[in-house]
C-alpha cells in the first residue's frame, strides 16, 4: 500500500496534519470526538457521584455548575457532532460512488477549526474556571454580573470557532451529495444514510448561523460592554432564549437524523430485506427537518409567551411525532419476516428502537404546554433528552461504528466484546435514566448540586449512579475492543458482513485512497445488492480505466485554524487587567487578535494565489494496488 506516488507525500504526523483524504479525516474526527466524549463522560460520572446520596459534598456547588455546563456543551458540540462527521466522511463518498468530497481542502479546514474550538473551550479548566451557566448559557446568568470568571467567554469563543468548522463541513457535504453522485444514482436511489446526512447538512446550514449571532451578541455584552441582554440598559434576556432555541431545536434533529440513517442501513442489512417504505422514509426525513425549525418555543413555555403562542408551538411540536412514527414503523416492517442476524451493530440498532420511542413519548408529553409547567426544569426533562440523545443517537452511532469499522480500518471488531458492551450499555442506560422520570415527577429539579434526604429521592439517585457506572463500563469495553482490534492484522473482505447492500461494500476494506478504480454505474436502490441478485460479481464500471487526479496534501487548513485560535484567545482577554506589562501591551492593544487574523487571512491568500494542480495516479499503479490479496 504505502509506496510513494509522488514527491508530495508526507509521512507520520505530517501526513495526518496535511491530509485532505476524507477517509483519514474521518479517523481524525473519530479520534477527536472520542477524546471529547471521554472528557464529557468523566464529567458525567463526577456529576452522578456527587448526586449518589443526599447532602453530598464530593464537589463544591461551583464545581458542580462547571461540570454540568461542560458535560452538556462537550457532549453535544464536541462529542457526538464529530463522531457524526466521522461517519459521514468515512461513508458518504463511498456510498455515492465518488473519489472524494467536493472540497477536500475545506473538509480538512472544517476538522481543524472544530478541533481548535474544542481545545479552546476545554482550556477553561486550567485557565481560571470553566463556564458555569449551563449548556444553554441563559442570560442574565451568563452575563458578567452573575458569571464572573472567563468561563462563559471560553464558551462563546470556543463554540464560535467549533461551529465554524461544523458549518464548513455541512456546506461541503451538501455540495458533495448534489454534484458528486455516480452515474445512475438519482436522488431517489441514494442510501438512507446519505439522505439523512444530506438533510442534516442542510439543517446545519440554516441553524448554525443563528447560534453564531447569539454567541457574538453574548460575547459583545461580556467583553465589549454591549447591552443586548442587560435589562438595566434596555436589553432583553428572553432574546437570548429565542436565538439559542431557534438554533437549539434544529440542532437536536441535526444530531438524530444521521442516527436514523445508520439504523436504516443496519436493519435492512441484517434482516436481508430491502428497507420498507424507502420513499416515505425520505419524505419523513424532510418533514422532520422542516417542522424542526418551527417548534423552538416549546423550550420556552414557562417564559410567558402567552396562551396563543404556547398552543401553536404545542401543536407544531406534537406534529413531529407523526413523521417520526412513520420511521419507527418502517424499521419494524423491515425486520418483519426478515432473516435477522443479531450481530453487534444490529443489537445496537434494535436496542435503539424501543429506547428512542420512549424518548419520543416523553417528548410528546412535554409538548403539552400546561403539563410542561410541571415538568419543566425537572429531572423529567433530563430523562427525556437522554433517552433521545444517549439511548437514541449514541446507540445509533455505536451501531454505525461497529457496522463500518471493518470498512474504515480493515479489521472486524470482536463480536463477543461488541455484544458484551451492548448489554452493559443498554442496561446501564435504562438504569440511569428510567428512574429520572420519576425523580422529575416527584419534584427533583435539574441542575441542583445536592438535595435534602427523605424526600423519596435517595434510592432512585443511588440507582441512577450505579446505572451510569455500568454504562461507563460498556463504553470502556468498546474502547478495549477498538484497541485489541487495532493490534490484529488487516485483511477483511470487501463485504465482511456478506449482506452489504450499498456501494461502500463493493470496494476493498479499507478502500484505496482513490476509492473507486473506475466509477461504478448505479442501476437501482441498494446498488450492490441489485448486482448480487442479478448474479454479477461486482459493479459495472461507468468509465474506462484511466489516470486518477488527486488533490495535494496541505498544511494550510491547520495553520488557518491555529490563527483563529490565537485570535479567539486574544479577543477573550482583550479587556483583561494584566500585572505583566508585556501581556497588557499585546492583549489590550488587540495585537494578539491581529496576529491571529493575519495568520488566517495570510493562509487564505496563499491558498488563493497558488493553484493546487494536484497529482495523478497512473494506470499501472492502479493495477498494482487493485490486485486483491
Amino acid at each position, binding site marked *: 500500500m504505502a509506496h510513494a506516488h509522488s514527491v508530495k507525500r508526507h509521512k507520520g504526523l505530517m501526513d495526518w496534519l496535511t491530509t485532505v483524504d476524507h477517509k483519514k479525516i474521518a479517523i481524525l474526527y473519530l479520534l477527536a470526538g472520542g477524546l471529547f466524549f471521554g472528557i464529557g463522560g468523566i464529567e458525567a460520572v463526577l456529576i452522578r457521584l456527587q448526586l449518589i446520596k443526599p447532602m453530598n459534598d464530593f464537589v463544591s456547588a461551583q464545581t458542580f455548575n462547571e461540570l454540568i455546563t461542560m458535560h452538556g456543551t462537550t457532549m453535544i458540540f464536541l462529542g457526538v457532532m464529530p463522531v457524526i462527521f466521522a461517519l459521514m466522511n468515512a461513508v458518504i463518498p463511498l456510498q455515492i460512488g465518488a473519489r472524494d468530497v*467536493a*472540497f477536500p481542502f475545506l473538509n480538512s479546514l472544517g476538522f481543524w477549526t472544530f478541533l481548535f474550538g474544542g481545545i479552546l473551550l476545554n482550556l477553561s479548566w486550567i485557565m481560571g474556571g470553566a463556564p458555569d451557566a449551563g449548556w444553554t448559557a441563559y442570560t442574565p446568568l451568563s452575563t458578567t454580573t452573575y458569571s464572573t470568571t472567563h468561563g462563559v467567554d471560553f464558551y462563546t469563543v470556543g463554540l464560535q470557532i467549533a461551529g465554524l468548522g461544523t*458549518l464548513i463541513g455541512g*456546506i*461541503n457535504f*451538501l*455540495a458533495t451529495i*448534489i*454534484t458528486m453522485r455516480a452515474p445512475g444514482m438519482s436522488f431517489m436511489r441514494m442510501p438512507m444514510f446519505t439522505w439523512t446526512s444530506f438533510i442534516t447538512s442542510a439543517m446545519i*446550514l*440554516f*441553524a*448554525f*448561523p*443563528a447560534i*453564531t*449571532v*447569539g454567541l*457574538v*451578541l453574548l460575547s*459583545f*455584552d461580556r467583553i*465589549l*460592554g*454591549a*447591552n*443586548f441582554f*442587560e435589562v438595566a*440598559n*434596555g*436589553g*432583553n434576556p428572553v*432574546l437570548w432564549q429565542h*436565538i439559542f432555541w*431557534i438554533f437549539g431545536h434544529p440542532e437536536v434533529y441535526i444530531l438524530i437524523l444521521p442516527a436514523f440513517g445508520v439504523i436504516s442501513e443496519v436493519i435492512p442489512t441484517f434482516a436481508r430485506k430491502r428497507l420498507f417504505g424507502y420513499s416515505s422514509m425520505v419524505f419523513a426525513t424532510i418533514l422532520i427537518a422542516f417542522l424542526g425549525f418551527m417548534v423552538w418555543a416549546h423550550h420556552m413555555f414557562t417564559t410567558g409567551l402567552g396562551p396563543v403562542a404556547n398552543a401553536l408551538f404545542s401543536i407544531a411540536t406534537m406534529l413531529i411525532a407523526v413523521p417520526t412514527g412513520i420511521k419507527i414503523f418502517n424499521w419494524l416492517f423491515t425486520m418483519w419476516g426478515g432473516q435477522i442476524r443479531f450481530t453487534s451493530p444490529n443489537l445496537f440498532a434494535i436496542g435503539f428502537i424501543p429506547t428512542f420511542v420512549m424518548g419520543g413519548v416523553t417528548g410528546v408529553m412535554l409538548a403539552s404546554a400546561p403539563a410542561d409547567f410541571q415538568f419543566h426544569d425537572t429531572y423529567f426533562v433530563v430523562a427525556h433528552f437522554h433517552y433521545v440523545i444517549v439511548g437514541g443517537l449514541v446507540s445509533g452511532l455505536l451501531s454505525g461504528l461497529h457496522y463500518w469499522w471493518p470498512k474504515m480500518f480493515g479489521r472486524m471488531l470482536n463480536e463477543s466484546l461488541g455484544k458484551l458492551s451492548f448489554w452493559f450499555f443498554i442496561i446501564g442506560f435504562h438504569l440511569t435514566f428510567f428512574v429520572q422520570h420519576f425523580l422529575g415527577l416527584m419534584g427533583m429539579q435539574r441542575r441542583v448540586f445536592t438535595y435534602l434526604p427523605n424526600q423519596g429521592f435517595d434510592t432512585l439517585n443511588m440507582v441512577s449512579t450505579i446505572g451510569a457506572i455500568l454504562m461507563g463500563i460498556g463504553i470502556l469495553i468498546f474502547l478495549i475492543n477498538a484497541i485489541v482490534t487495532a493490534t490484529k492484522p488487516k485483511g477483511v473482505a470487501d463485504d465482511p458482513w456478506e449482506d452489504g447492500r450499498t456501494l461502500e461494500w463493493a470496494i476493498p476494506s479499507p478502500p484505496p485512497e482513490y476509492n473507486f478504480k473506475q466509477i461504478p454505474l448505479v442501476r437501482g436502490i441498494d446498488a450492490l445488492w441489485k448486482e448480487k441478485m442479478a448474479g454479477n460479481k461486482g459493479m459495472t464500471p461507468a468509465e474506462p480505466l484511466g489516470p486518477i487526479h488527486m488533490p495535494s496534501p496541505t498544511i494550510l487548513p491547520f495553520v488557518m485554524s491555529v490563527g483563529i485560535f490565537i485570535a479567539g484567545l486574544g479577543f477573550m482577554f482583550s479587556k483583561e487587567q494584566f500585572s505583566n506589562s508585556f501581556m497588557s501591551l499585546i492583549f489590550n492593544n488587540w495585537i494578539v487578535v491581529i496576529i491571529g487574523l493575519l495568520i488566517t*487571512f495570510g493562509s487564505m*491568500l496563499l491558498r*488563493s*494565489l497558488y*493553484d493546487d494542480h494536484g497529482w495523478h495516479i497512473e494506470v499501472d499503479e492502479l493495477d498494482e494496488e487493485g490486485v486483491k490479496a
Partner: protein
Amino acid sequence: MSTTHAETVDGALPHEPEKATLEGRNKVLSFWLFLGGEAVLFGTLFATFLALRNQTNEGPTAGELFQLPMTAAATLILLVSSLTSVFAVQAMHRHKVAALRVWLMITVLLGLGFLGLEIYEFAEYVRAEKFGMTTSAFSSAFYTLVGFHGAHVAFGVLWISVLIGQLYKKGLTVVTAPKVYVSAMYWHFIDVVWVFIFTVVYLLGKVG
C-alpha cells in the same frame, strides 16, 4: 495593459468559463449555499435589531441620529458598485480581461467610498453624539448589524483586489473565472443586505 493572456485563452475558453470545470460548478453551487447561511446570519441580526431598536436607554434615538442624505449617498454608491460588478462578469463572459479588470477596480473604489462614508458616520456618532457600543441596547444592535455589514464590505474589497492581482498574473482561466464570478455573487449579496439596512434601520428609524 497586456492582452496576451486574453488572446491565449480566448479561443479555448467557453462562454461561461466559471462553469467549465466540476471544481468551478462546485464552487458556484456551494457559494449559493453559503449565501443561504449568510441570509440566516443577517436575518438573526435584523431580528435582534428590530427587537431592541426603541430601547435607547435615554441615549440618542434613531430619529435624532440619522442623516438621510449621507446614507442615501452611501446607498447609491453601493448600488452602482453592484452594477459595475455585473459589467465585470459580462466582460468576463466576452473574455475581455482588460475590461474585466477595470470594472472590478471601479467596484473596489466604490466599495472603498462606501466604507469611508460609514467610518465617518460611526466616528461622528461616537464623537459628537456620544453614541457608542455601550450606550444602549439600541446602540449595541445598531453597531453590530451595520458593523457586520461593513466588515463584509471590507472583506469584499480585499478579496476583489486580490482577484484583480491574480487576473494580471494568471489571466482569465477556468481557475480564476469561478473566483471572479463568486466574488460578484458575494458583492450582490452584501448590496441586497444593505438595501434592507437602509430600509429597516435608517428609513424606519426616521419615520418610527
